[in-house]
């Protein structure tokens, strides 16, 4: 899993059925100092409570995502699995 900052949201009406009812967020990977590190990408918000500016924990592995969402056929690769309160390094 990686730390990311939520930059904003993506809205899509026409989409693959697997994404129906799911919230899409654009996230920016962070390094241990919580500075931007790498390319932004889209993640589905499973925590349902993340908003722009939040630091979140993102799972980037489709197998794990399918286990959490309990559907072996989901074409989803990135999932927000936690909202971070604090990081001590």
């Amino acid at each position: 899993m990686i730390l990311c900052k939520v930059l904003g949201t993506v809205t899509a009406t026409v989409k693959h059925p697997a994404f129906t009812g799911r919230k899409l967020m654009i996230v920016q990977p962070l390094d241990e100092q919580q500075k931007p590190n790498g390319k932004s990408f889209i993640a589905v918000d499973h925590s349902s409570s993340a908003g722009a500016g939040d630091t979140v924990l993102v799972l980037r592995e489709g197998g794990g995502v399918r286990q959490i969402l309990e559907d072996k056929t989901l074409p989803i690769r990135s999932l927000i699995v936690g909202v971070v309160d604090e990081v001590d390094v």
Partner: protein
Amino acid sequence: MYLGRVIGTVVCERKYEGLEGKRLLVVQPLDHEQKPSGPVEVAVDTVSARPQDIVYLVGSREAALACDPTFVPVDAAIVGLVDSVDV
């Protein structure tokens, strides 16, 4: 998953089993500001996207799962037409 802009189409007469009837589009990946990010790629279309559309894609194994049947040799699939990006 990531944003992209459709910039063209690809036609293949002969292709691997499972890819028959699948639309192939040329996509420029975009960053959150909708600026080009990285090399252009070819993706399978699942949502009837058209050139110039802003879309979102899924890569790797999950791209094949977006297709029916799920065991097809693809590593990028367009899975949504983007209405808006709020950052």
